[in-house]
């Protein structure tokens, strides 16, 4: 039987002692999971190793940890695969990030993950009296939210959320993906109120920094960041919610900027994101940025001409035409590869097309019971 060394981070806060690393060598088939390895170490060497687990089959979401620095389920990673990615041959196992450690590999999900989950009111709030029998909804609209329903609450995305790392109050990827599950549900009657709340919150949908860590972390292809972008799309595009965080204004300013110039005119983007150069909101921001701008001017990084005179793209008119055509459509055309899958086999290595809209494996599509190839879905919310 091959041997694998697990380097496990040990920590018991109550003892007052610092965390330390401990090596355990286990002998198991390489196709057994890291969780199996941890359990063997616990069984043979030290029964006090703290790990939370239940189903051992990537369904219950209990055994979220970091393996070799990356978040995921301990039961979802083969020992041989983990060993291959281990820097010095030892498989490093540590608790997830962004949450306090209760003991060894067990983090306090209540203090962070579940608290944030409750923050988004994760239940249906239908309008009016319930129908006599069941709600009848279009099939497509429910297919649309299956991606978020695939979440098993393991916390892997929360663990490595880079916005939460600097802003612990950020509602975060798991809870916001859950929010889309209800925002996108045609039975819910509070779409506007939910979005107003989540966009006005300084730690809400506009606090996501677009780092893709949650997409990479999720073992179920939920692609939380893409769900956050959909929340923004509906909040701004359908409800025109002008949030206090400049989120929608920034998006509008960016889109307008490209529509007008073809390429980005940075000098306009900043003030426009705050509502325009002379807007009361913009003034303190611009004054605050003044030293930076002056240094940039002094270094010749930015010239006054470049800052003040738009550098319009040659061919901007054709760009504008595309904006007009797409904006004139009755509804937004949104292709979610998680649902539609890919209709053709990828032919080349570097630009692989075998993943979902959001990095989700195309195979998951079938696992979710959705059609593996169907025409593009139209956004039900536009």
């Amino acid at each position: 039987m091959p041997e694998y060394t697990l380097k496990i981070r040990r920590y018991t806060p109550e003892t007052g002692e610092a965390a330390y690393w401990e090596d355990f060598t286990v002998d198991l088939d390489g196709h057994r999971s890291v969780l199996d390895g941890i359990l063997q170490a616990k069984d043979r060497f030290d029964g006090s190793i703290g790990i939370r687990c239940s189903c051992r089959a990537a369904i219950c979401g209990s055994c979220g940890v970091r393996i070799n620095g990356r978040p995921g389920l301990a039961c979802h990673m083969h020992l041989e695969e983990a060993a291959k990615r281990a820097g010095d041959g030892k498989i490093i196992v540590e608790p997830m990030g962004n949450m306090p450690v209760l003991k060894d590999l067990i983090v306090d999900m209540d203090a962070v993950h579940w608290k944030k989950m409750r923050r988004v009111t994760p239940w249906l709030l239908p309008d009016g009296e319930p129908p006599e029998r069941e709600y009848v909804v279009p099939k497509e609209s429910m297919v649309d939210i299956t991606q978020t329903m695939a979440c098993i609450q393991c916390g892997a995305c929360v663990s490595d959320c880079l916005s939460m790392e600097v802003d612990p109050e950020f509602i975060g990827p798991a809870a916001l993906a859950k929010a889309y599950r209800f925002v996108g549900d045609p039975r819910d009657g509070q779409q506007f109120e939910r979005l107003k709340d989540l966009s006005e919150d300084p730690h809400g949908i506009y606090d996501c920094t677009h780092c893709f860590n949650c997409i990479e972390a999720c073992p179920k292809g939920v692609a939380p960041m893409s769900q956050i972008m959909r929340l923004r799309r509906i909040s701004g595009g359908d409800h025109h919610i002008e949030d206090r965080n400049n989120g929608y204004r920034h998006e509008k300013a960016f889109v307008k900027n490209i529509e007008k110039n073809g390429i980005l005119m940075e000098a306009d983007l900043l003030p426009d994101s705050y509502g325009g150069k002379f807007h009361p909101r913009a003034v303190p921001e611009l004054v605050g940025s003044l030293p930076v701008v002056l240094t940039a001017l002094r270094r010749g990084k930015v010239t006054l001409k470049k800052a003040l005179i738009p550098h319009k793209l040659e061919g901007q008119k054709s760009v504008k035409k595309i904006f007009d055509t797409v904006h004139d459509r009755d509804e937004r055309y949104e292709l979610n590869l998680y649902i539609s899958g890919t209709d053709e086999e990828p032919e080349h290595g570097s630009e692989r097309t075998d993943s979902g809209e959001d990095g989700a494996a195309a195979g998951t599509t079938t696992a979710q019971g959705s059609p593996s190839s169907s025409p593009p879905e139209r956004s039900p919310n536009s």
Partner: protein
Amino acid sequence: MKVAYWPGCVSRGFTPELHGSMELVAPLLDIELVELDRACCTGAGVIAEHNQELADTLNARTFAMAQAVEGADMMMNICSTCQGAQSECQERLDANAEYRAHVNETLSGESLHYEKGITNKHFLWLMVEEIGLDAIAAKVVKPLTGLKVGPFYGCYIVRPTDRLGIDDDNPRDTYLTQLIETLGGTVVDYAGSHKCCGFPIITMNKAASLKQAGRHIGDAIDADADCLVTPCPLCHLNLDLQQPLAQKEVGRDLGLPILHLPQLVGLAFGLEPKALGLSKHVVKPTSVIDWSTSVVAGVGDGGW
């Protein structure tokens, strides 16, 4: 090799030294740049956030223009964010023939047509995969001996790995490390190398944004870095242009020079620091450059 070259917006706007240094380095690597001067912004993820079809159509237009460049081997960009935004659109366009036809219909007015399967590589990928590290090493005339360089990738070029074709055969999330070593520099391993610079939320949550930049720079300083190198001009904006503000936000002195990728390559190839636009940075790269002799030297090494 000949490439259809998409320089991006910021490399011609607030970080002109990026486009400038790329133009200087390209001939030394026998890269012929055919600039896509009618192509438009990739949307940087923001247009996709607003309307996916719009972003996909704008980028399909750029791809179609690149495909129309006669004799070009592939398309090349110099911005992590462009690479990520374009890869996202390409993934959708390549996955579904019906959708592609729909997008091409919009482009037909300009007589443009996107054929599935364009090869679009960031300069970093192109150097490692097309030119090869050995060939690059052979061109080094001033090895970056003693220079401790921290890689800073930018999110869009390292995640999601599936979409970006990062796997055991193409470990694109390690290319900066490999390249720094090839140029003779010392790689600094620090916590922030694959994290977010914070730029996307600078107008929404300035404190959090600057904290990200400040923290990564601080981590790199603690790991003894002389400078960072980034393949992303947007990261450069937050790490360099905003560094004085990031410094205040994290409450410690920073002052770490941030280099664009072609600048680092150019230095090792013997180009003049000034020509590479190093004097245009907000944080002066004095730790990287001995201005009096224009040779590369690490801080405290006394030069060589």
